[in-house]
């Protein structure tokens, strides 16, 4: 299977199953409408006839080049990965989303967590529950050395003493178990203080700082309970945290765009101009009936904006103003292995979420959906059958994914979105798919342009 597209002044051909990326000329691009394996010794007459706009000698030459790449198995290569799909069915659990606070001090209008409490009442996680969660992860982690734990909410800083105590506990126990905890915290920043910044920068491998971009965009969707904007409060605090953070540790400012700011590249650049160079801005996923929801009719605008963003990013790079846009980051040579790419985030299998009550869910997005409750830490229960169901939710068990050219880049998408909007974790959420495919096209194009500029291509 191949996927070909024109973008950024390039004709790009992706060989889906080998991961090969080829930049081709217009002749090759046109020829690929007709040429496919098995390749003949010479270009068939009917193909020559189908391309009257091109010189037949050139077409013959080009046909041979395609045949050679096919022979090399970097064009039209077969999908031979289904046999690896069973690899992580009995996987250990290595990542956890700890809902340290089901309460929040903002009232973001698009919040999937029902303004912070996930529809289950405002609660803070007791330290003892957090410690049980650490024990659960350690005991279930098998031979995995790196364990990820994300302090999530609601707003985690509303229960920061518990965060500190749980981190201390985990640091003590990781030594006993020979593990390495990587903590992340996702915060809206309202309660950041110098002390908290110092602790976060010391202990957290990654920090996700929630802000939507331009002040008016942020304040429209991320007000306080009293209706005030949050931008002027959080921006200086985020700046302080980032400025004090070691350069070798990860962090992101992370925003959500909605129908109200389909010109979201302006928000990405607003964040860059405000002093942030690690940026993630992603589309809201919401009931299409809601006014801010992105719907199918918005897709042309969203696509155009991703193209605009990729061009602006390339121009910035040329001018020495580099920044990372999370959703365009892609390593065409040293990315995750094919086995990893069959199953995406690993929710419900390698990754679980824990609520303040100690309930276990496949991920934060499933919290509150009773039918997906996997167990409870106090009761010592865990639904192994459901874990297996999630382990088997790989791309070969998702009908639309197994036919999709982007399957090794998004790896089956978000199971929670699939369930919420399509009624089945195995049914890809089309709207998310369309935007993901556009992001992947842009990401590959950016790498292609950079590669050609460096003169590395062969």
């Amino acid at each position, binding site marked *: 299977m191949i996927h070909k597209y024109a973008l950024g002044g390039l004709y790009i051909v992706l060989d889906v199953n080998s991961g090969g990326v080829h930049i081709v000329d217009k002749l090759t691009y046109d020829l690929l409408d007709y040429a496919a394996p098995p390749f003949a010794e010479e270009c068939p007459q009917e193909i020559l006839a189908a391309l009257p706009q091109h010189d037949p000698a050139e077409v013959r030459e080009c046909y041979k080049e395609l045949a050679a790449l096919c022979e090399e198995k970097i064009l039209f290569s077969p999908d031979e990965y289904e046999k690896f799909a069973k690899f992580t069915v009995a996987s250990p659990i290595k990542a956890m989303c700890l809902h340290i606070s089901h309460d929040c001090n903002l009232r973001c209008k698009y919040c999937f967590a029902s303004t912070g409490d996930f529809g289950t009442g405002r609660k803070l996680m007791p330290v003892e529950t957090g410690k049980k969660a650490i024990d659960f992860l350690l005991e279930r982690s098998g031979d995995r050395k790196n364990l990820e734990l994300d302090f999530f909410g609601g707003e985690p800083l509303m229960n920061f003493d518990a965060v500190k105590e749980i981190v201390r506990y985990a640091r003590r126990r990781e030594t006993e178990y020979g593990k390495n905890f990587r903590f992340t915290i996702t915060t809206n920043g309202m309660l950041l203080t110098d002390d908290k910044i110092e602790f976060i920068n010391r202990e957290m491998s990654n920090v996700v700082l929630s802000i939507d971009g331009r002040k008016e965009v942020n304040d429209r969707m991320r007000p306080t309970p009293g209706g005030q904007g949050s931008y002027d409060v959080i921006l200086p605090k985020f700046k302080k945290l980032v400025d004090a953070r070691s350069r070798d540790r990860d962090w992101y400012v992370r925003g959500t765009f909605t129908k109200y700011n389909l010109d979201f590249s302006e928000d990405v650049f607003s964040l860059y101009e405000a002093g942030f160079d690690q940026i*993630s801005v992603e589309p809201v996923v919401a009931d299409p009936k809601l006014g801010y929801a992105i719907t199918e009719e918005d897709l042309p605008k969203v696509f155009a904006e991703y193209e605009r963003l990729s061009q602006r990013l390339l121009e910035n790079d040329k001018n020495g103003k580099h920044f990372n846009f999370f959703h365009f980051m892609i390593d065409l040579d040293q990315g995750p292995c094919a086995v990893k790419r069959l199953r995406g985030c690993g929710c419900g299998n390698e990754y679980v979420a824990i609520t303040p009550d100690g309930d276990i869910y496949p991920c934060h997005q499933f919290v509150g959906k009773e039918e997906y409750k996997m167990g409870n830490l106090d009761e010592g229960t865990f639904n192994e059958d459901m874990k297996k169901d999630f382990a088997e939710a790989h791309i070969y068990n998702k009908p639309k994914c197994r036919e999709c050219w982007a399957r090794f880049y998004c790896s089956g998408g978000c199971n929670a979105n699939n369930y919420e909007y399509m009624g089945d974790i195995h049914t890809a959420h089309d709207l998310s798919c369309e935007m993901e495919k556009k992001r992947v096209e842009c990401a590959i194009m950016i790498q292609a342009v950079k590669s050609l500029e460096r003169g590395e291509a062969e």
Partner: protein
Amino acid sequence: MKHIVTINKANLKESAQKGGCGNCQASCQSACKTSCTVANQKCERDEK
């Protein structure tokens, strides 16, 4: 080649043979909370 430039190693198949160690990051932990993008992660296998 005159008409085609290949810009990467196209090593997905090779990665499968040595892959599946599971040491890499869980993809949805961090800056993307719904828009799964696995391809932007790093391989964390000790010896490739």
